[in-house]
C-alpha cells in the first residue's frame, strides 16, 4: 500500500480569523469505520463549538491528537487508512506530516476580508473560490458573514462565493439609508453592481432570505436562483421576544438566553459567541440600526413583508430549507412557498446552516449546479 491511501484528519478552519481550536473530544474510537458526513470529533474555538463531520471515508487508524488539547488550524489530529496499511506506514506518515506554513496566518486572515464602497456605504465581504457560478450569501437580522463559516469554503469548491455584511451589520457601515426591505434589497443590488456581478444565485438566511427574495421580485434578471433558509417573508409570524430581546440586550446575562432561541442544541451558544455579539452591539450606531430594522420589518411582532405569492409568480428556481426546531420563524411557513422545493431538516434550529452544515451545503450545491 502506498501513502496515497492514507487520509489526514485535520483541525478545521472555521471562519477567516480562526487560528487554533480545542479538540474537546473524539466521538469515534480507533478502528471505527467512518463514512463521509459522520460526526467524528467535537471542536471548540473562541467563537463556537461544533461537531466535525468526516470529509473522507475510511477506518480511523490513529487518534494523533488528545482530547482537551489545543491545536493550530490544519494540525494533524487523526489518520484514516484501510486495514492493509501497516502501523509502520502510519507512524511514518505521522512523523512526516508538516503543518502548512500559512495555516491560520494573521495576514492571510486580514487579506481575505475586503471592503467595497457602494451607494449604501462601505460594505465588508469575503470572496472565496475562483470558478463556477456566482453565489451570494446574505445573512439575517443581527448576523454577519461569519454566519456562513461552515458553508463558505465548501461552497467555494464549486462556485465563486461572495458573503457580505449588510449595512448596519458586521463590519459594514452602520448607517442605514432605508431600513425597509426594498431598501435592503436595493443595497444588495448595489453590492452586486459594485462587484460587477450580473447574475447570481442568492442564498439568504432569515431576514437575508427576505432581502434576496425582494431583490428577485424587483430585479428578476439579476437572480439565477434563490435558496431561502429559515426564511423571513413567507408568513406573518415571528418570535417577537427574540427580536426585542436581541435589540435590547445590553449584557451577557441578558443576551445569552435570547441566543439560545437560535439553535436546537443550546451547547452551541459559547461564551465567545455571546461576547462577539455584544462587541458588535456596542459599536456606535448599531443599536439604532437594529431598532430601525425591527420597527420597519417586524412592527407589532409581525412580519410586515409577505412575498410568498410574488415569489410563486417568478420563474426563478427556488429552494426552501428549514430546521424543524426553528424557534424564531415557524417551519410551517415553508409550505407557503408554493413552487419551491422544500427541504425540512430534523433536529436543527434557526441557524440550520451552522447546525447541519454539510446537509445544507449539499442541498445548495445541488440546487445551484442542477
Amino acid at each position, binding site marked *: 500500500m502506498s501513502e496515497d491511501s492514507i487520509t489526514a484528519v485535520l483541525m478545521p478552519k472555521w471562519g477567516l480569523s480562526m487560528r487554533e481550536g480545542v479538540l474537546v473530544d473524539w466521538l469515534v474510537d480507533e478502528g471505527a469505520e467512518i463514512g463521509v458526513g459522520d460526526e467524528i470529533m467535537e471542536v471548540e474555538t473562541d467563537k463556537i463549538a461544533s461537531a466535525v463531520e468526516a470529509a473522507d471515508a475510511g477506518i480511523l487508524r490513529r487518534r494523533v491528537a488528545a482530547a482537551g488539547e489545543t491545536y493550530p488550524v490544519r494540525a494533524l489530529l487523526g489518520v484514516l487508512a484501510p486495514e492493509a496499511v501497516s502501523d509502520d506506514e502510519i507512524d511514518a506518515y505521522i512523523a512526516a506530516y508538516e503543518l502548512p506554513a500559512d495555516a491560520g496566518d494573521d495576514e492571510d486572515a486580514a487579506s481575505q*476580508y475586503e471592503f467595497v464602497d457602494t451607494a449604501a456605504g462601505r460594505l465588508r465581504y469575503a470572496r472565496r473560490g475562483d470558478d463556477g457560478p456566482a453565489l451570494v450569501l446574505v445573512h439575517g437580522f443581527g448576523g454577519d458573514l461569519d454566519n456562513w463559516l461552515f458553508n463558505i469554503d465548501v461552497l467555494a469548491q464549486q462556485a465563486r462565493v461572495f458573503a457580505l455584511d449588510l449595512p448596519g451589520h458586521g463590519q459594514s457601515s*452602520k448607517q442605514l439609508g432605508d431600513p425597509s426591505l426594498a431598501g435592503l434589497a436595493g443595497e444588495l443590488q448595489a453590492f452586486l453592481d459594485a462587484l460587477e456581478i450580473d447574475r447570481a444565485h442568492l442564498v439568504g438566511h432569515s431576514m437575508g432570505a427576505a432581502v434576496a427574495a425582494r431583490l428577485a421580485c424587483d430585479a428578476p434578471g439579476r437572480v439565477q436562483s434563490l435558496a431561502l433558509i429559515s426564511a423571513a417573508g413567507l408568513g406573518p409570524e415571528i418570535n417577537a421576544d427574540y427580536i426585542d430581546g436581541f435589540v435590547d440586550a445590553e449584557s451577557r446575562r441578558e443576551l445569552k438566553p435570547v441566543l439560545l432561541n437560535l439553535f436546537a442544541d443550546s451547547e452551541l451558544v459559547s461564551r465567545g459567541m455571546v461576547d462577539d455579539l455584544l462587541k458588535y452591539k456596542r*459599536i456606535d450606531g448599531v443599536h439604532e440600526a437594529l431598532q430601525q430594522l425591527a420597527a420597519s420589518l417586524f412592527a407589532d411582532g409581525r412580519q410586515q413583508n409577505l412575498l410568498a405569492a410574488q415569489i410563486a409568480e417568478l420563474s426563478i428556481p427556488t429552494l426552501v430549507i428549514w430546521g424543524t426546531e426553528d424557534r424564531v420563524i415557524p417551519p410551517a411557513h415553508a409550505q407557503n412557498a408554493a413552487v419551491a422545493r422544500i427541504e425540512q431538516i430534523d433536529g436543527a434550529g434557526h441557524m440550520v446552516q451552522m447546525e447541519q452544515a454539510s446537509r445544507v451545503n449539499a442541498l445548495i450545491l445541488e440546487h445551484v449546479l442542477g
Partner: protein
Amino acid sequence: MARNLSMKDAINEALDQEMARDPTVIVMGEDIVGGSGSPGEDDAWGGVLGVTKGLYAKHGDRLIDTPLSESAYIGAAIGASTCGLRPVAELMFLDFMGVCFDQIFNQAAKFRYMFGGKAETPVTIRAMVGAGFRAAAQHSQMLTPIVTHIPGLKVVCPSNAYDAKGLLIQSIRDNDPVIFCEHKNLYAHESDVPEESYTVPFGEANIVREGADATIVAYGLMVHRASEAAEALAKEGIQCEIVDLRTLSPIDIDSVVESVENTGRLICVDEANPRCSIAADVTATLSQEAFGSLKAAPQLVTAPHTPVPFSPALEDLYIPSAEHIVDAVRKTMAP
C-alpha cells in the same frame, strides 16, 4: 474593522474620536501637548509616555497644557464639567492625587448628591497606576482602593486595549466623575480593537476564561498574571475561571457570586496593598453572599503592606506573580 492595537494607541483613539464627535470634550494636563505653542508634531510629545501624541495637531487648543499644579487644573476641569464641558484631565500618576484630592472626593464626588440630583459632573480623570516601571515609591502605587472607597466616584481599570477604548468612551459620555486608571505596564499590550467608536458598560465584569474548579478575581495587570497562573494550573488538570472586574465602582459582584457558586473556591488578586484593598472588599462581600458555596477559605494575593521598593529585585518580588497565584489556588484545592 478591527486591528491589533496597543492599549496606549487605543486610549489615544478613544480621545481622538470623542473629541471629533463632541465639541465639548477637552483634554488638559501636564505636558499632554508637550510643546504647546509649537504647531508641528516634532515638539509635541503628547504626555510623558506619548499617550496623547498627535491630538494637538488634530484638535488644537482643545488640548491644554497646564501648569504643574494639580489642585489648579483638576479643580478647573471639575468646574468646567459642571458648566457644560466634558473635560478629560490627565493626572499623570494617580500617586499625585494627594494635592488635589479635596477637589475630587469632597467636591466632584458630592455635587450630584448635595444638589439634589440637579448637578452633573461629567469629568474624566485619567491617571497611570501600578508598579514594575522602576519608578520608585511615589510613582508606582496601586491606589485604586482609595478612590473606590468614595461614593460618587466611578472607578475604571482596564486590562486590555479593547476594554480601554470602550471604557474610556463610556467614561467621557458618563455624567458622573470617573477615575480612569491606566496601568503603565499595559500600554504596549495589544489586542483586537474596532476602528469604530463603541462603549463598554460600567459594572459588567468580563469572564476572561471559564473553569469549574476555582474563581480568580483580578483587574488591570493582574488579569494577565492570573491568566499565566491558570495556564500553568490547567496542565495539572485544575481549571480556573478568571473574572476581570474592569470597573471597581460600580462593581459587578453578581458575576463573581455566579462564578463562585459554580467553582466553590475564590482567589482575589490585587496589586494594591492588602489592607482595605479591592481583594479584601470582594472577599468580604463573597463571604456574606456566597458563604454556603465556598469549599475552602478564600485566598487573597496582594502586594505586601509596604511602599513600592525602588530596588528592581525587590520591586519584582513586591508585585503579585503568577507563582503567588498558583500557590493560592493550590491552597484552596488542598483537602
